[in-house]
């Protein structure tokens, strides 16, 4: 094939590529010549097949996407499946058109395979993210809207993508974590169970009637609307600390109402202690003097008058 003028440079590069790949350049040249000598009707046939084929693929994918949406498959998997099927159908259409042009497919497929291996090695981290993303979507350790801790990061799941997971932190920052990191980290999901237990500590003075303090605390917990009666709240003496008696409170609430319940119980117990005059002590230190301690030498300070 005579490569003239500006075609020489890509032609030389094409020959270099063929030699590197170990393909027979002469055979490839003959194939390209055959394409260029194709009669007009075959070219029209290929153009018509390509156009109508692309239209058919687009319509088929719209249908497929709608059918998969109605199914129970996750949306991220639906997108992955439709994208994969789109690529496969495009490749099939391209191979069909190449067959119409009488281009032998064997060498082309071998070349594509080699390029595929090179690309796969280059983007292996991205592929790991996609693979981990697929596993996460299928195993569902969390779903959109759950509040989770992934490693040291905490936030509400905004979006589950194939390559990464998007969290919205309490400070309203968007955190984008690669799925490989998410999959290999420790995940704590605060929303999996419909109810959660809140643990609170309240301190009362040592002089307080303990039974009364516990009764008042229990009553205050029950007065909060979001505290569940089953499992019922538990109030016990946790420890006799240095300055106070520490009372432990366990209350249960629905996961969605966790913080509302937390603040409501804190406030209700504080108000109840105030109403019943139960003292909440400050930190105190008791100092005791020992009678048998050796007396220290009295210190005298000479003043002007004593001189």
């Amino acid at each position, binding site marked *: 094939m005579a490569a003239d003028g500006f075609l020489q440079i890509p032609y030389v590069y094409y020959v270099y590529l063929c030699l590197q790949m170990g393909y027979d350049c002469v055979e490839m040249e003959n194939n390209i010549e055959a394409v260029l000598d194709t009669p007009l009707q075959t070219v029209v046939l290929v153009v018509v097949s390509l156009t109508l084929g692309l239209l058919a693929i687009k*319509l088929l994918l719209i249908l497929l996407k709608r059918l998969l949406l109605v199914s129970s498959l996750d949306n991220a998997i639906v997108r992955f499946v439709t994208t994969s099927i789109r690529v496969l159908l495009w490749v099939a259409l391209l191979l069909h058109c190449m067959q119409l042009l009488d281009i032998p497919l064997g060498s082309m497929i071998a070349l594509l395979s080699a390029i595929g291996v090179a690309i796969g090695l280059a983007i292996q981290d991205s592929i790991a993210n996609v693979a981990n993303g697929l596993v996460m979507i299928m195993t569902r350790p969390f779903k959109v809207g759950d509040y989770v801790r992934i490693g040291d990061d905490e936030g509400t799941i905004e979006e589950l993508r194939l390559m990464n997971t998007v969290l919205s932190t309490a400070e309203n920052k968007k955190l984008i974590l690669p799925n490989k990191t998410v999959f290999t980290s420790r995940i704590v999901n605060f929303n999996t169970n419909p109810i959660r237990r809140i643990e609170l500590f309240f301190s009362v003075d040592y002089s307080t009637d303990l039974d009364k303090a516990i009764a008042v605390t229990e009553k205050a917990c029950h007065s909060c609307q979001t505290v569940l009666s089953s499992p019922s709240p538990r109030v016990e003496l946790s420890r006799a600390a240095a300055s106070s008696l520490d009372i432990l409170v366990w209350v249960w609430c629905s996961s969605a109402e966790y913080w509302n319940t937390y603040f409501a119980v804190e406030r209700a117990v504080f108000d109840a202690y105030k109403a019943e005059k139960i003292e909440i002590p400050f930190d105190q230190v008791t100092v005791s003097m020992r009678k048998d301690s050796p007396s220290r030498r009295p210190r005298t300070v000479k003043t002007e008058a004593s001189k």
Partner: protein
Amino acid sequence: MNMEAIIDMVMPIWLYVRNTVYGWFVIIAVILMFLLIFKCYRSPLSIAMDKLRKLHPVLVRLSSRKSVPSRKRIRHIHVLLVRCGRFVQAYLYDHPSETAVSDAYRLISSADRAILALSLDSLQKNAQASKKVIRNAASLVSKAIDSIAR
């Protein structure tokens, strides 16, 4: 170049490609038929909007009843809300910058969690609390409808 010459040039090409074109037209016609059957001409957002509009009066009616809805009813509403959420999410994938639709998706998820909480034993025994939860879910659905309509 007169018409006869053009037709003489085009006819052999048409005869050559005719069967292929007919074949592709048949395939496209079959796909179009299935698209019409499954109503794929409608946007997923409009389907979600219709479902939410039908659900809202149901929730309002349930919140005014004295008894707690049965678990089967709760499950049915939950499945409906999940489906609406999926349609809205599918729309969001193609239009990620639409904040109003994103808000609607969050509201639908919150309504779904509220409805799921109704299946707890403590709420099943407490008609008053469950009425509040259903009312809350109805208000969330109403806000979601307004967000999508914006």
